[in-house]
């Protein structure tokens, strides 16, 4: 690890990707993540990598498909409407079992929306905006240091399970600055080999292909079953969460990403008022840590979800809580960021009921 430096969120994610050995980046500018594209344009040539600005997000995701199929560590970043355009290609990559890291710096929607921070892409990212039976591991950082660590982790998870992985960020995380410590860079030549599946040239071995297609339903079902086995492994191994002040809880908040850290301040405010509040912060949104949340729900009467959306993660929270506690919701929409005071007020309203 080096010394601490102040960086913007977009730069933190970009630099982390390069240190993870990513040498191929495709992108198309869109606010509020254009600084990440810009950072990669500057950095990739310095490390002997490839930066390519595609003509659209649709082209971007198909370039990801191509570069990944020959074994490269590939990445793109975009914001909500751009991520929507990538969905078809992501479904193709999932079926073809191609690793790749996608960063969605979520902004207010629906439609063209605005350029302020939001978490309204939860359904699109976590439940899959594309077609067919696929899942994507999704990680939602709440600080820039965590964004660095999760970006590097995302590449490892993508390669290990041969799947696209998404970093769920938002406009606030993209624009804010915080000190981070970057780990030492990984030499891409030392990464685990992909020679057992990647299209590296068939000289001296049997030809192989990477595809997301089979006209024979029985064969396609077999491909599907391999995916489903992979998702079972991912659900078993890749759950991540943080618990904050949950030892003696009477009330539990659930929030992810930047809202997660805002809620930590609300937890402290509640405790000043004598309310024993705590926070459960899912870090992996898929696989969602249902089991641990279910255990915590047994200790409380209220599990309150806070999001910058109309209550999308709330559905997963309710699946975990299974009626063991009340599950009220507080959310702001369209790019409005909730403050600790507003969150506390929403909780007090629930407690007075």
């Amino acid at each position: 690890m080096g010394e601490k430096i102040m960086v913007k969120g977009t730069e933190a994610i970009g630099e982390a990707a390069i240190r993870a050995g990513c040498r191929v980046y495709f992108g198309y500018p869109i606010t509020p993540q254009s600084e990440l594209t810009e950072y990669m344009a500057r950095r990739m040539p310095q490390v002997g990598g490839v930066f390519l600005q595609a003509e659209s997000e649709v082209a971007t995701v198909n370039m990801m498909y191509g570069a990944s199929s020959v074994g490269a560590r590939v990445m793109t970043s975009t914001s909500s409407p751009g991520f929507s355009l990538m969905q078809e290609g992501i479904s193709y990559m999932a079926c073809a079992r191609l690793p790749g890291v996608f960063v969605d710096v979520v902004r207010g929607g629906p439609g063209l929306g605005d350029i302020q921070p939001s978490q309204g892409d939860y359904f699109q990212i976590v439940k899959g905006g594309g077609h067919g039976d696929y899942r994507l591991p999704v990680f939602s950082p709440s600080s820039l240091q965590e964004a660095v660590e999760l970006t590097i982790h995302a590449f490892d998870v993508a390669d290990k399970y041969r799947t696209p992985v998404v970093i769920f960020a938002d406009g606030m995380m993209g624009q804010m600055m915080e000190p981070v410590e970057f780990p030492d860079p990984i030499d891409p030549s030392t990464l685990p080999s992909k020679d057992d599946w990647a299209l590296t040239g068939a000289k001296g071995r049997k030809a192989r292909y990477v595809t997301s297609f089979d006209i024979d339903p029985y064969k396609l079902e077999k491909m599907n079953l391999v995916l489903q086995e992979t998702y079972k492994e991912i659900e078993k191994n890749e759950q991540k969460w943080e618990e904050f002040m949950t030892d003696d809880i009477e009330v539990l908040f659930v929030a992810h990403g930047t809202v997660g850290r805002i809620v930590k301040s609300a937890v402290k405010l509640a405790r000043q008022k004598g309310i024993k509040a705590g926070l459960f912060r899912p870090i992996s949104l898929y696989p969602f840590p249902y089991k641990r949340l279910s255990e915590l729900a047994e200790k409380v009467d209220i599990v309150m979800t806070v999001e910058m959306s109309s209550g999308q993660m709330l559905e997963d929270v309710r699946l975990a809580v299974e009626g063991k506690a009340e599950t009220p919701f507080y959310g702001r929409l369209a790019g409005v960021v909730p403050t600790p005071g507003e969150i506390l007020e929403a909780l007090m309203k629930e407690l007075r009921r």
Partner: protein
Amino acid sequence: MMEHKLIAAGFGGQGVMLFGQMVAQAGMIEGKHVTWLPSYGPEMRGGTANCTVVVSDEPVASPVVDKPNEIAIFNIPSLLKFEPMLEENGILVLNTSMIDREPTRKDITIIRVPANEVADKLGTLKAQNMVMLGAYIEVAKTVSVESVFKALEAKMTGKKAQFLDVNKKAIEEGMKIARQQLG
């Protein structure tokens, strides 16, 4: 626990963002936990630029602040917006070159800084944000002047290095003004 929650606000171009970045960077140099959050909300359309800085002994939870305990105000719209939000007994550093009206709060500490005039005398009006910064660190004691100088040296490299001395001088002048008013 020590936690400074600062909002710096003014028009775009007054150097408000850099003001906040220098406080955050200096805090980091001192080994404190810091966040810097630029105004990134619907209020940008109203014409003001602002940033929120948190400097703390503990990891910073929310980078979003309901009630700052310190505000550095560079123009009238920002005074109207942020003075009511200031925590009880908070600190207000006011650029009186730009603001010809009196704050209404009686419970707070007010430092009045004719930042533009001071910077102008030093030869560059642009350094008015550094005059404000000097006054701010003198009254709020968030970070030491040595750390701010180090932060400035890290920021102003290459072509910008020639402006380092005048910026340091501006910070010292700001500190002097605050010291005089604090008595």
